[in-house]
């Protein structure tokens, strides 16, 4: 393939850039021509689907290019669920590939080479000691010895560059750029694939919108139901924009761009969740999602400001530019600032942050010496200050801030409240929002931003994740709305991902993101199919649907099995067999186990994860059993149930297949191995740190979780919890040995507590909304009572004064003005003769005037020249 010889970065950026922009084109096309595309805009579905399909194909091309150029190697800490044992470890081959790739110039940023050079030009000598100090302070020194994977740290392949610079100054470059590693490429494939499925599915699901529809959930003041024209094109228009935004986040090369598309995703979700905006609930839910996300984004903005203010760049990767002398100048990006190569890619507080934190001292220095000297002094001092902990807080704030945004997007407690409400949107939207796009964005960004997160932040992330997964799972236990169960399960699974990331399981978390995307979109689309058939969301009115909807039922079973991580917990002839969730969830559990072993005080995380697994199994199968097994509970619903059309079931089957195989590895080919390529530099090893927010923690290397003693144990625990959950569900809902209602009455307070979703909404109502109302009322009373009366007084006084003034006006001022006016009037009357209205005369005037000015000017000039 000739692409090897060309610049892969350019190829990938072109392909992925096209894949990214095509949905935008579709959006624009539908925006302007949507209603004209066939009857009622029917063809807009094909435009949108075609666009995202094309993106998918382009992404596949990019993926193929990537796989050919950088075939994943199954490292020894890679995924050992699959058949990697047989595949062997051909590290040398991998190195060869890297070396060849490393020769390509320009946008390909080979960290090892570039930074090697940078380190060798005397830079390292200056700061050698400081580095050692920093190592000692952060406890990073041992990470090579621990795991011996230092060489992998140099293997990270990423391409970055800018398409277009929006704004450029020494202190800030805003650009539309790309940062492409295997994570980007793979997420592109995944997002476009799932989005394609959802587009196809939606073109069937949304067919109601093709004609005028009566919305029975909206009652107008006249008592009639709302009757409105269909909004088919609008739906696909928003869908296209949504895909464009999500792909923009994925490909973004800098945080500013991420933030732009982050907000675009937010506004798209607002469009889509509020698609039925005439419904009060839908518009409220849309607003809620938007506002809750804004809360997170506020944090994100703080993070952005912290980074920009201290570091002056928002680029992920290094950017290469040519200066005036024609030399290539490497401007380090965030990653290399936080984890510089000369430091072995270990985390250190970047100079900028240190200096920013030590602003007082810098001021002191600057007040004594000249600016040049001050700079030198500051440079000397930086490592010392760093050792003393300057800037640690800034790094933590930056990390927390960015994570705050991720919390909003990925619905982490306490910002999770929007997600279940977001079910008000059409089901394809739910599938898209909850699998591939919006919520994935948060996890993705956490993963992308991972190198900058310090252990303190990671602990916070882990706890937030654990709390989220636990709370959401408990709520899901008692939900009866089929989509809400899935929604809470999404929240719970997102908690898992965050937990994994927080525990240092970078691959595990993102792996779960990928597998979850497949099976969760499958589950949502299945539920959509069920809702489409039953016209209700209430599981209590379903039951026994399996016979009537075989495709939906069985594919949903696949989805349920995948989400609970069903698999065989022991090796069958060297093969571990299981559905996709099996691999990813086990990886998370294993990581949690390692973590809890390393940090005894944080053992709670492990229990939360394991308990969550059991609950996941229970509520998922509760859902499936209630929906598909047993007898129909509501005859009315049951009698007109039918299987959905092929355009809806076909994506289900496709996704079901993906939900099964997404986690498999064949030889070196597998998601985990692929993600391993994208692992941020320096994160393969564990790290120790913290002390700011918690006691010092050790984040274990992810490879540690692959050790058999950990992994086997975790696998068995996962199996046990999952099967116990399934069994319990079966006991309740299939065999009916125990009446669930009885339990509910027995544990009434708990049940009510859970049914009310831990009273989050109420708490927020009391904490935020009510006080806000109160403040508003106070302000209003203040306005009316005090300020208004003062104003009235002033007004009265003014009137009295005005009466006096009026007399003066009428007599004195008016007299003057009238005189002036009459003078003007009479002079105008005389001057009007000059205004002949004759064009040619005006031209003449202009010419005469010009000549006169010239003459005058030359005269003046000559006199001034002559006079001295």
């Amino acid at each position, binding site marked *: 393939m000739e692409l090897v010889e060309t610049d892969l970065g350019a190829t990938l950026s072109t392909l992925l850039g096209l894949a990214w922009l095509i949905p935008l084109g579709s959006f624009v096309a539908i925006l302007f021509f949507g209603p004209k595309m066939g009857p009622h805009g029917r063809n807009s579905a094909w435009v949108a689907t075609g666009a995202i399909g094309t993106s998918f194909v382009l992404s596949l091309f990019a993926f193929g290019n990537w796989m050919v150029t950088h075939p994943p190697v199954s490292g020894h800490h890679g995924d050992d669920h699959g058949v990697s044992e047989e595949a062997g470890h051909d590290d040398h081959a991998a190195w060869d590939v890297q070396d060849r790739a490393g020769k390509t110039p320009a946008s390909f940023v080979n960290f090892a080479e570039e930074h090697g050079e940078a380190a060798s030009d005397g830079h390292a000598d200056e700061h050698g000691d400081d580095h050692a100090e920093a190592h000692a302070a952060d406890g990073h020194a041992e990470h090579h010895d621990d795991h011996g994977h230092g060489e992998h740290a140099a293997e990270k392949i990423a391409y970055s560059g800018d398409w277009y610079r929006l704004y450029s100054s020494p202190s800030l470059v805003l650009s539309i750029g790309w940062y492409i590693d295997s994570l980007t490429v793979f997420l592109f494939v995944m997002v476009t694939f799932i989005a394609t499925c959802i587009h196809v599915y939606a073109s069937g699901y949304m067919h109601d919108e093709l004609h005028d529809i009566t919305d029975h959930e909206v009652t107008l003041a006249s008592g009639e139901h709302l009757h409105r024209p269909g909004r088919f094109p609008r739906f696909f228009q928003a869908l296209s924009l949504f895909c464009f935004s999500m792909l923009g986040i994925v490909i973004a090369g800098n945080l500013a761009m991420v933030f732009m598309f982050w907000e675009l995703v937010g506004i798209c979700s607002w469009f889509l969740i509020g698609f039925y905006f005439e419904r009060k609930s839908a518009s409220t839910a849309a607003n809620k999602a938007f506002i809750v996300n804004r809360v997170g984004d506020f944090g994100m903005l703080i993070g952005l400001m912290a980074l920009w203010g201290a570091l002056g760049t928002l680029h992920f990767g290094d950017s290469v530019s040519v200066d005036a002398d024609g030399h290539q100048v490497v401007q380090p990006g965030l990653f290399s600032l936080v984890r510089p190569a000369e430091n072995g890619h270990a985390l250190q507080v970047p100079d900028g942050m240190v200096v920013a934190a030590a602003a007082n001292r810098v001021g002191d220095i600057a007040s004594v010496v000249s600016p040049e000297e001050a700079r030198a002094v500051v440079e000397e001092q930086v490592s010392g200050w760093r050792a003393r902990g300057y800037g640690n807080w800034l790094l933590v704030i930056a990390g927390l801030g960015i994570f705050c945004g991720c919390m909003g997007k990925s619905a982490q407690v306490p910002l999770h409240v929007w997600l279940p409400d977001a079910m008000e949107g059409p089901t394809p939207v739910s599938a898209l929002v909850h699998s591939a796009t919006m919520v994935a964005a948060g996890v993705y960004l956490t993963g992308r931003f991972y190198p900058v997160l310090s252990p303190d932040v990671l602990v916070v992330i882990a706890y937030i994740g654990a709390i989220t997964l636990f709370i959401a799972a408990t709520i899901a236990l008692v939900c009866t709305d089929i989509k809400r169960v899935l929604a809470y399960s999404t929240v719970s699974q997102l908690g898992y991902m965050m937990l994994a990331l927080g525990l240092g399981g970078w691959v595990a978390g993102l792996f779960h993101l990928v597998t979850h995307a497949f099976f969760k979109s499958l589950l949502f689309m299945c539920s959509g199919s069920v809702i489409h058939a039953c016209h209700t969301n209430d599981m209590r009115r379903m039951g026994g649907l399996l016979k009537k909807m075989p495709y939906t039922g069985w594919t949903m079973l696949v989805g349920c099995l995948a989400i609970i991580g069903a698999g065989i917990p022991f090796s069958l002839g060297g093969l571990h067999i299981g559905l996709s969730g099996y691999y990813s969830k086990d990886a998370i559990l294993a990581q949690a186990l390692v973590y809890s072993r390393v940090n005894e005080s944080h053992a709670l995380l492990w229990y939360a994860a394991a308990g969550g697994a059991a609950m996941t199994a229970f509520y998922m199968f509760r859902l499936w059993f209630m929906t598909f097994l047993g007898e129909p509970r509501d005859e009315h619903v049951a009698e007109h149930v039918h299987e959905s059309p092929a355009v809806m079931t076909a994506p289900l089957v496709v996704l079901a297949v993906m939900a099964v195989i997404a986690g498999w590895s064949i030889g070196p080919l597998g998601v985990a191995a692929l993600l391993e390529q994208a692992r941020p530099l320096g994160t393969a090893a564990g790290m120790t740190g913290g002390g700011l927010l918690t006691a010092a923690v050790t984040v274990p290397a992810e490879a540690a979780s692959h050790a058999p003693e950990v992994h086997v144990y975790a696998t068995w625990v996962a199996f046990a919890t999952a099967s116990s959950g399934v069994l319990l569900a079966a006991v309740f809902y299939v065999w009916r040995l125990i009446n669930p209602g009885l339990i509910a009455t027995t544990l009434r307070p708990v049940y009510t507590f859970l049914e009310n979703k831990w009273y989050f909404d109420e708490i927020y109502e009391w904490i935020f909304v009510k006080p806000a109302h109160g403040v508003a009322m106070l302000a209003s009373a203040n306005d009316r009572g005090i300020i208004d009366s003062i104003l009235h007084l002033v007004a009265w006084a003014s009137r009295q004064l005005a009466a006096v003034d009026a007399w003066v006006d009428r007599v004195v001022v008016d007299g003057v003005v009238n005189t002036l006016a009459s003078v003007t009037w009479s002079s105008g009357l005389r001057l009007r003769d000059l205004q002949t209205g004759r064009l*040619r005369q005006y031209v003449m005037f202009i010419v005469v005037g010009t000549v006169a000015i010239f003459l005058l000017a030359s005269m003046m000039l000559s006199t001034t020249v002559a006079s001295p």
Partner: protein
Amino acid sequence: MNLLSDPVGVSHYLVVGALLFTTGVVCMVVKRNALGVLMGIELVLNGANVNFVAFGSPVLRGEQASLLGLDGQAMALFVILLAAAEAAVALAITLNFYNNHATVDVDRADDLKG
């Protein structure tokens, strides 16, 4: 300097430009037909253009032309383009005037007479 004996230079072009400009102005003044006035404007713009091109010409100013670079020619281009736009609008105005007054005599267009 003697224009007739010197090699052709910027000054020569300036003279031509001045002549065209003046002719255009006179045309604007003399013509009562709105279209004639319009043609006068075109001549004026054209005269200005000659100057621009002359100042930007590497042939006429040699090395010194680089002081102006392409600006002269680019300016001439813009003038040409805007002249086209101006002609379109002026013609539209003329036609409208003709529609309303059934004449193109600018002396009859004295609705704004003071």
